[in-house]
């Protein structure tokens, strides 16, 4: 048993923290305010090899692990929740399913360009009538010669419009229910593919969240990911991995809000002393930091299990549930500690509170995480 990060992981943390402080943090308020995708940051991240952290070098990745990847999402999100999710959606929801389910040809074709950041990746499962009930897919794929023809709409797609590669789920055989869902690798220049309206959101406002429209979209058969009818299982496994990313995002947002609050309560004076000197402040913040540390252990434990080839589905669900609810609690209290200033956009904690909320919703709501955890308990 060893809870220490390895020397490599520590060196990585040193780099990513410096990068987040110097390159990401200064832009966080601006991209939120302007609801602007952080293209310039994405370019810098690409240059440093951040888009293929846990991918073997033979596919153009960095050859790192999922602990490093979770540290990256945590540290980026500590500065900016938007930047954290750009990396998380790309890595967990597009790169990972290709790496884990792709044919050798698909891996050779897609992974090097995804890892170098030349192509960004996204994932399309959610539909207007298929949210938590993801099995109710209405997007259909019909065989036509060497291709499949896709028709339907996906919504709330992170990185949409800026991505070249989309992992898309569609019904190939409705009579089979969930066993009739198949996954496809769709490229943005395939005929019949388009990006629809962009959502205006409460938080992570720099993240591009859009609708995807498939109108007789022709996708070659060789772009089928995994087996025909194997899509739902790929989607669920992919989301297990994605939850490590979102848990790390929530963890980072919580730690970011905590760091801001420590700084603020030390400086802010009321009744002749800093508000950090009040035991009420200290006790509340001690409780919050304990929850943050517990979240971190859950995230790292899930990532460790993924790296060592163990089943991590429940661990990832617990990490995401706990980290997301902790992020919401910490950021809400951070605003309270900042008082009236915390409610203004002059301080970053209101943004962090808005950013935290989504972590309780996407890639499986907190209720879904409880379903996953309970299913294991009562099976």
């Amino acid at each position: 048993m060893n809870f220490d990060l390895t020397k490599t992981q520590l060196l990585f943390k040193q780099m990513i923290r410096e990068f987040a402080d110097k390159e990401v943090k200064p832009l966080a308020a601006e991209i939120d305010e302007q609801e602007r995708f952080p293209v310039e940051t994405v370019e810098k991240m690409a240059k440093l090899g951040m888009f293929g952290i846990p991918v073997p070098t033979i596919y153009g990745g960095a050859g790192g692990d999922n602990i490093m990847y979770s540290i990256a999402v945590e540290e980026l999100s500590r500065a900016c929740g938007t930047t954290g999710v750009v990396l998380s959606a790309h890595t967990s929801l597009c790169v990972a399913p290709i790496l884990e389910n792709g044919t050798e040809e698909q891996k050779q074709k897609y992974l090097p360009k995804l890892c170098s950041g030349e192509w960004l990746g996204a994932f399309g499962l959610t539909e207007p009538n298929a949210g938590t009930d993801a099995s109710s897919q209405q997007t259909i794929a019909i065989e036509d010669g060497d291709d499949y023809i896709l028709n339907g709409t996906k919504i709330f797609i992170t990185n949409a419009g800026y991505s070249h590669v989309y992992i898309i789920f569609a019904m190939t055989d409705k009579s089979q229910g969930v066993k009739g869902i198949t996954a496809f690798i769709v490229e943005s220049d395939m005929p019949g593919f388009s990006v629809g309206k962009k959502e205006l959101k409460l938080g992570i406002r720099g993240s591009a969240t859009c609708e995807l429209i498939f109108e007789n979209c022709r996708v070659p058969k060789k772009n089928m990911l995994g087996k025909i009818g194997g899509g739902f299982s790929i989607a669920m496994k992919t989301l297990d991995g994605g939850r490590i990313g979102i848990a790390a995002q929530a963890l980072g947002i919580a730690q970011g809000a905590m760091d801001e609050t420590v700084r603020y309560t030390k400086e802010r004076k009321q009744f002749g002393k800093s508000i950090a000197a009040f035991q009420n402040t200290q006790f509340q913040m001690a409780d919050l930091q304990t929850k943050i540390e517990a979240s971190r252990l859950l995230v790292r434990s899930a990532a460790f299990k993924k790296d060592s080839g163990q089943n991590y589905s429940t661990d990832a669900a617990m990490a995401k549930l706990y980290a997301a609810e902790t992020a919401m609690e910490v950021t809400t209290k951070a605003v309270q500690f900042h008082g009236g200033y915390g409610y203004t956009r002059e301080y970053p904690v209101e943004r962090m509170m808005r950013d935290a909320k989504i972590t309780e919703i996407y890639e499986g709501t907190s209720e879904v995480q409880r379903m996953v955890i309970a299913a294991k308990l009562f099976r």
Partner: protein
Amino acid sequence: MTMKIVVCIKQVPDTTEIKINPVTGTLIREGVPSIMNPDDKGGLEMALRLKDQFGAHVTVITMGPPQAEAILREAMAMGADRSILLTDRKFAGADTLATSHALAGALKQLEWDLIVAGRQAIDGDTAQVGPQMAEHLDIPQISYVEDLKFDGKNLFTIRKQTEEGYQMLEVESPCLITVLASACKARYMSVPGIVKAYDFEVETWGADKIDVEEYRLGLKGSPTKVNKAFTKGIKSKGEVFEVEPEEAVGIIISKLKEKFII
């Protein structure tokens, strides 16, 4: 022929994080992170840019305790090709002169067209080690380098910072330069570089491996004696003027003139 560059770097406490014990007046080093000295990092970046542009083999070398290995790994993750750690009890207690003798002794065992050092280290601020090494090696040196251009053969055109402004100088290799952190913004370690950083061998050299007389090393070779270390106290509260900005400008200018600062 590939140009060979050796960059001398030092591990220092991050002085922005250092606190002073108000009772004893000494530095509280506990919990202070160690970092690569900022001017040295600027020098390493300059070397790596030459490597990117012209192709070069970059060796990093540091003298220090075994834990100084961390900055060599960092340098490798940034793109250096070879790393050497000079570590030996015989080096302990070295002042700038003994340090420069040890480093020059190691440099004599290496091939180089260009030696790069940081202008000065943030824990000592002496700016002596680079120039001393050039003297021991009997090669030309340019200190306070803020920009460097290379003709691709053997000529460097250098902008050297001076108190009044700058000088433009030309120097042929082999030579030694000392670089300012502000000369070029250092790159981040790359992720693949980090993953590989601990796969490389860091060569460890002791006193027996370098070309220098032993009496020049460590405490024995150090003429500098620290008489006393103290925290500079605040002399007075200073004068406070509560005035409008326009008036403030006038007061500041007259005060600076009074003290012959401008």
